[in-house]
């Protein structure tokens, strides 16, 4: 589903953030990406929805090579991928419902009635069905993160990527969020999560990719802990 082959990324200032990275995430798999701060985790995730382009190598998502995607088809690619950000990136002048409905409005394929149904289904999954009319400003960090997840899954993407989704959350909430991701994996969604919370990802019992200064290394739990 996600395939990186000899991918390197050199930022415009010349800094090489990724160096010859190759890995693969199977359809329906849930994988963690870890590494020290500055190791290149966010860089890897940003290249999947073409927020950054690779400098070298090849990235294939759902059997499509990203280098073949023309600029005007980038939005369509992003619509097929659910993205969760550390700072959740909600629109603060809209309520919970409208935030979650946004991807469906963007895709333009849904009747308003269908939008309402799907948004409530997504909010139900993250346990915020009762809060749909609330302003997102009134939510706690964990609640905001869950709204972000509902927004990412509402259009039923095949791939979910999350960059430090539990960055600001306490351990109990973090565990809850990870369990949520696991539930999406169980219904066939491919999930790739960047996190440096080794304790948390260790408990999840999933495959772990480790980055070190832009290169993939063998993950060694003892050493990192």
């Amino acid at each position, binding site marked *: 589903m996600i395939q990186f082959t000899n991918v390197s990324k050199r930022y415009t200032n010349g800094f090489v953030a990724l160096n010859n990275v190759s890995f693969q995430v199977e359809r329906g798999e849930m994988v963690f990406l870890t590494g020290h701060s500055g190791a290149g985790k966010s860089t890897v995730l940003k290249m999947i*929805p*073409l*927020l950054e382009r690779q400098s070298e190598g090849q990235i294939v998502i759902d059997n499509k090579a990203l280098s073949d995607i023309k*600029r*005007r088809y*980038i*939005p*369509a*690619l*992003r*619509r*097929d*991928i659910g*993205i969760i*950000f550390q700072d959740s*990136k*909600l*629109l603060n*002048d809209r309520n919970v419902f409208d935030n979650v409905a*946004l*991807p469906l*409005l*963007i*895709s*333009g*394929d*849904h*009747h*308003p009635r*269908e939008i309402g149904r799907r948004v409530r289904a997504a909010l139900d999954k993250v346990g915020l069905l009762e809060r749909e009319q609330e302003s997102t400003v009134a939510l706690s960090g964990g609640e905001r993160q869950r709204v972000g997840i509902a*927004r*990412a899954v509402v259009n039923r993407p*095949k791939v979910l990527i999350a960059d430090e989704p539990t960055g600001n959350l306490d351990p109990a909430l973090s565990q809850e969020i990870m369990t949520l991701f696991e539930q999406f994996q169980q219904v*066939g969604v491919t999930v790739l999560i960047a996190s440096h919370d080794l304790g948390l990802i260790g408990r999840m019992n999933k495959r772990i990719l480790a980055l070190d200064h832009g290169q993939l290394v063998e993950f060694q739990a003892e050493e990192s802990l």
Partner: protein
Amino acid sequence: MSSSERRPPSVRRNRPSLKARLQNYLALHFHVLTSSLGLLGRMPLSTFMAAMVIGVALALPTMLHVSLSKVQSLGAAWQESAQISLFLRDTTSENGALALQSEVKGWSEISSVKYISAEQALEEFRQGSGLGDVIQMLDKNPLPAVLVVYPKLDQSTTLDTEVLLSKLRARPEVEQAQLDLEWVQRLHGLIDLANRAVLVFGLLLALAVLFVIGNTIRMAIQNRRDEIEVIKLIGGSNAFVRRPFLYSGVWYGLFGGLVAWLLVNVLLLLLDGPVQQLAALYGSDFALGLIGLDTTLLLLLAGPLLGLMGAWLVAGRRIRTIEPV
């Protein structure tokens, strides 16, 4: 339960039917239309200011256009009531002239006919020109007798002066029939010129409206930069991001058009009294009245159209510069 739910996840989602897609499309546009109105409602002051500026800019040429077309219709009325001079053949006797006078006076389109005999004409000329001595030297009066025909002032009978002229020319007593149009033509020349000036003026102000709306939209985009960024991050195309701003432009234009409509009508109402008094001094029942339906429609179409254009010129370019691409 929708059909897409029953399909296995490996099957690519089918596109909905054309009818369903059209329905979705219209519903979404309606949503954007109303939500863009809501956006404006959230910044009432700048919306109000923009509408006022656009309104004034649209009101100026509209006011000129409306007044000019009133004057123009007045000029047309005057043209219809312009006097016609019939120069009679010198073979026509005084009785023949008087007979013609009373006959023409009987025509429905004629208000009055004045007879000026050759002697009277000469006398008038003598007094008017101060060439009395020269005229004394003439052994024969060179001036013909004249019938001055005044068509009816009544505007309801649309009078074709050309038809009337040829009817009069056909008379054997008449040597020459002349429509005294010079000043009416001059008025028309002036009105033509003024119309052209209004057009140029209007185009310049339309340009100003474009700039005002473009600038307002540019600031709105700047204010919503973070939001635009998020929308693009999750797959909103530039066109999707642009849409509410285009609608905002349309709303600004519509509000501006309404403001202009109100302004012009208020001005016309204020001016109508004095203008009527002035016209009464000249024996006319000329009145300004209010904006006509056609001008109203023009304003309410031109406003939104300019708004759309102004927004369109700015929005696409601005939005494309906001990362991510």
